[in-house]
């Protein structure tokens, strides 16, 4: 699953899409949160990029774990532990020989770890509302492009949702009508990963 794609290009693609969309993410967060999500995510992924050579020297699972820890330490908001826990758990569950089925299992554990960390579940207008549909798509055998498309649709689907967890839940009914910024970030990252996997396939 991961043997033919290197950690460097994955991180570069994720950091690039977060940087390019930081303003939009912050705007989404200003509408229903505290307006720092884009800047926080950008800082986190810049920090991971800054350590790229050191990280890329590690085996893939170890690199994921270290990148997750870096996000925890540098993002600042609750997104740090949430996105960090995702990558740390994914790294913990993967081996360098993991096949597709093994990857889906690891992904599921990582999503569950995010739910536990955030004491949240599907349907509360959070990043989980994109991660769970992605997991479903993977279980159905979708390719990375289809998983990314599902992620994007799922992020859109958070717009009419009522937030019942996270800062947006303070707004109650007023949280309706805005996309959840965490959900938007997950969809962006999914798109970046799919793009990278596709370009490596073509190479």
């Amino acid at each position, binding site marked *: 699953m991961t043997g033919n794609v290197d950690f460097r290009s994955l991180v570069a693609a994720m950091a690039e899409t977060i940087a390019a969309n930081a303003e939009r993410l912050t705007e989404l967060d200003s509408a229903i949160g505290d307006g720092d999500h884009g800047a926080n995510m950008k800082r986190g992924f810049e920090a991971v990029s800054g350590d790229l050579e050191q990280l890329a020297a590690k085996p893939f699972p170890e690199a994921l774990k270290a990148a997750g820890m870096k996000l925890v330490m540098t993002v600042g908001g609750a997104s740090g532990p949430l996105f960090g826990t995702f990558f740390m758990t994914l790294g913990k569950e993967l081996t360098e020989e993991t096949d597709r089925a093994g990857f889906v299992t690891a992904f599921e554990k990582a999503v569950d770890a995010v739910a536990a*960390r955030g004491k949240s579940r599907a349907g509360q207008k959070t990043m989980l509302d994109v991660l769970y549909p992605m997991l479903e798509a993977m279980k159905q055998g979708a390719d990375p492009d289809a998983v990314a498309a599902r992620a994007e649709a799922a992020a859109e689907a958070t717009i009419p949702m009522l937030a019942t967890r996270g800062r947006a839940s303070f707004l109650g009914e007023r949280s309706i009508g805005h996309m959840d910024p965490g959900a938007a970030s997950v969809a962006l990252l999914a798109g970046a990963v799919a793009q990278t996997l596709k370009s490596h396939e073509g190479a």
Partner: protein
Amino acid sequence: MNVGIVIVSHSPLVAEGVADMVRQMVGDEVGLAWCGGDPAGGLGTSVEAITKAIDKAWSDAGVAVLVDLGGAETNTEMAIEIIGEPRASRITICNAPIVEGAIMAATEASGGAPLASVVATAEELSPL
């Protein structure tokens, strides 16, 4: 040795202000540390800063942590996990309002109460 108190706010001004109030009302009988602000100096919380604050306020009797909004709690939970055992089980986040909770917890701690009583005293302030 008395239970230590850590104050974690999104704002360094709030965290420091709460710590000042605790010092003035409770005195120097308890280990006390605060942190606030994200790693870039903006509003937010930092796992690294929280870890350092817990180290600073550390007591073998344990540490009670008062937090403000969601991210402060999530980041504190992460910090406790990183600190790990055997210390982790002696660090408790109080489900209590940050200002009143810190003062009640510190008052209880200054009398030598165990961690569970310190936390329970702060949490009496929480709406059910």
